[in-house]
C-alpha cells in the first residue's frame, strides 16, 4: 500500500525532472541553432559588455556572445561527461565480470590492480594523466576514464559473485548451461539496475571533474567553447566583467543539480521496484 504511494510520488518526480532535464538538455543539444550570435565571432569593440538585448549574458574579453558560447560549449561539457560514464561503465563491467566470474588468480590480479588505481587520490591521477598526455578534450576524457573505472569494476565484481550464489544460476550451471549463456542470460540482466544507479549518480561527478580539468587548462583548448574553460578565461575580468564567470558557472551548476536530482530519482524508482518485487 505505502509502496504504491511511494511509487506514484516517484513517478511524479520523474515526470517533473524529465521536463526540467529536457528544458536544459534540448536547448543545449540544439545549441548551435538557438544561439543568438556566432559563438566564435570576435568583436573587440564589443568586448566585456554587460548583458544586453543583443548579448543576453554579455560578452567576453574578445567580444564573443557568452550565451551563444554556453550553448555551443554544452556539447563538450555535458556530452563528454556522458561519454566518459558510458566508457567506464563498459570497461568496468567487463573487468568486474571477468574477475567475478573467473575467480581464482585472475580475480586476485584484477582486484589488486583496481586497488592500486584506487590508492591514488583520483583527481590527482586524472590531472597527472592529462598532464602527461597533453591538453585536449580527448586526453581529458581518457584521464577521467582512468579516474572513474574502478568503481564499476568493483561493483560489477561484487554483483557477479553475489549472483553466482543464487539458486537459479547454480541450477542453470548444473543443467549444463554454457558460461556465455549464463553470463548473458542470467548475470548481466540482473546487474544492470544497480550499475545504472551508480552510473546515473556518477554523471554529475564526472561533469564536475571534466569542468575542473578544463578550468585547469587540461581539457578543451581555446578558442573552442567549454564551460570550465570559459570560467577560467574569465578570471582576469572578475572585477570588471563578472558575468564572464557567472553565467557559465550557473549553467554548470544547474546541469549538475539536475543530474543529481535525476540520479536520486532513478535510484528511488529502481529501489521501489525492487522492494515491490521482494514483497510479491
Amino acid at each position, binding site marked *: 500500500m505505502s509502496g504504491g504511494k511511494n511509487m506514484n510520488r516517484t513517478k511524479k518526480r520523474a515526470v517533473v525532472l524529465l521536463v526540467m532535464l529536457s528544458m536544459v538538455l534540448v536547448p543545449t543539444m540544439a545549441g548551435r541553432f538557438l544561439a543568438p550570435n556566432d559563438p566564435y565571432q570576435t568583436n573587440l569593440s564589443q568586448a566585456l559588455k554587460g548583458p544586453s538585448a543583443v548579448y543576453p549574458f554579455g560578452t567576453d574579453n574578445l567580444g564573443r556572445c557568452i550565451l551563444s558560447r554556453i550553448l555551443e560549449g554544452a556539447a563538450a561539457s555535458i556530452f563528454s561527461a556522458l561519454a566518459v560514464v558510458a566508457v567506464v561503465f563498459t570497461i568496468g563491467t567487463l573487468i568486474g565480470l571477468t574477475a567475478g566470474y573467473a575467480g581464482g588468480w585472475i580475480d586476485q590480479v584484477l582486484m*589488486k*590492480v583496481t*586497488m*592500486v*588505481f584506487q*590508492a*591514488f*587520490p*583520483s*583527481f*590527482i*591521477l586524472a*590531472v*597527472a*594523466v*592529462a*598532464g*602527461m*598526455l*597533453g591538453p585536449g578534450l580527448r586526453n581529458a576524457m581518457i584521464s577521467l576514464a582512468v579516474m572513474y573505472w574502478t568503481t564499476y569494476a568493483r561493483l560489477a565484481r561484487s554483483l557477479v559473485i553475489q549472483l553466482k550464489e543464487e539458486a537459479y544460476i547454480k541450477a542453470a550451471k548444473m543443467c549444463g548451461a554454457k558460461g556465455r549463456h549464463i553470463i548473458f542470460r542470467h548475470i548481466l540482466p540482473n546487474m544492470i539496475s544497480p550499475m545504472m544507479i551508480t552510473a546515473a549518480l556518477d554523471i*554529475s561527478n564526472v561533469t*564536475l571533474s571534466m*569542468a*575542473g580539468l578544463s*578550468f*585547469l*587548462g*587540461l581539457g578543451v583548448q581555446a578558442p573552442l567553447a567549454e564551460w*570550465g574553460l570559459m*570560467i*577560467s578565461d574569465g*578570471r582576469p575580468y*572578475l*572585477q570588471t566583467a*563578472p558575468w564572464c*564567470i557567472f553565467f557559465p*558557472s550557473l549553467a*554548470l*551548476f544547474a546541469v*549538475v*543539480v539536475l543530474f*543529481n536530482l535525476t540520479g536520486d530519482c532513478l535510484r528511488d524508482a529502481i529501489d521501489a521496484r525492487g522492494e515491490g518485487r521482494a514483497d510479491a
Partner: protein
Amino acid sequence: MIKFLARKTGMLILIFIGITFLSFCLTYLSPSNPAEIKLNKTGVPPTEELLEQTREEMGLNRPLLVRYGDWLFDMMKGDMGTSIRNGKPVVSELKKALPQTAALTLVSMAAVLLISIPFGVLCARFKDGPFDIAVRFVTYLFASLPSFFLALVFLYLFSVKLGWFPVIAPKGIRGIIMPALVLALTLSAWYIRQVRTIVLDELSKEYIAGSRARGVPEREILFSHVLRNAMLPITTLVGVSLAGMLGGTTIVENVFSWPGLGQLAMEAITARDYPVIQGYVVWMALIFLLVNFLVDLSYGWIDPKVRR
C-alpha cells in the same frame, strides 16, 4: 593486534609497489620522448644519431622492469631526477611546496570537522525538523557547486569587493584562510550528510535506550556516548575523503596562487616537465596511503575490539 598490523603492513607494501610502478609507467603516456626533450633543452638539433646516443646515455634502451627498479632505488635514496624546466632536483622542488599543501589540507580538514560535526549532529538530533530540512537542502546544492566557482565567488566578495584579503594569497595565516575555507565548504556539504547518517545510525542502537533507562541525561548521551561511538566511522571518513581534498587543492591553489604542490604540478604540466609531474603524483599517492595507514592504526586506539 600484531596480526592486524602484519596484514596491514603487507597490504601497504603491495600498494606501495603498485603506486610507484604505475607512476613510473605514466611517463610512457607522454607523446614526446625524454631524449628529445633533453636535446631540445640543450639547443642541439635532434638527429637520429644523437637521439639514439642520448637514449643510450639515459638508459632508455633497457627493459622496463630494470628501469623501474633503478628508478625506485633512486627514489628511496631521495633522488627523483631533475626538473626539465630549471634543472633543479625534483625532490627539492617538491619539498619546497609540500609544507604549503600540507598546511592547507590540515587547516581545511580541521575546518570541515568543525563545521560538519555540529551541523550533522544537530540535523540528526532534530531529524526532519526545520533546521534539518534547511541544512539538507543547502548541502544538496553545495554538493553540486564546482569548487573553482566557489573560489572565484570568494575572491570576488572578500578580495575585490570587501578588500579583506589580497587577490594573490600571501604566505602565512592571512593567506591560508580563503583557500582553506573554500576547500572546507565544498567538502563540508558532503560531510554533514555523512555525519548525520552516522549519528542517526548510532541513535537507533540499543545502548541509547539502555543509557536512557539508567537515567543518563540526553545531552550526556549525545556527547559522551553517541559522539564517542561515532568517532570510528568519522575517522574512516577522514581517511577516505582525504583523496578528494588533495584533489581539490590542485584547483584551489591554482585560483588563489597558493604555492603548494598543486600549483607546482600545473606549472610543470605547462612546461611539460615530466619528472616533476611524476614526482607530484607519487608524493600525493604516498601521502594518501600514509594517512590511511595512520587512520587504520588509530582504530586500535578508538575501537576496543581492535585493541584487545
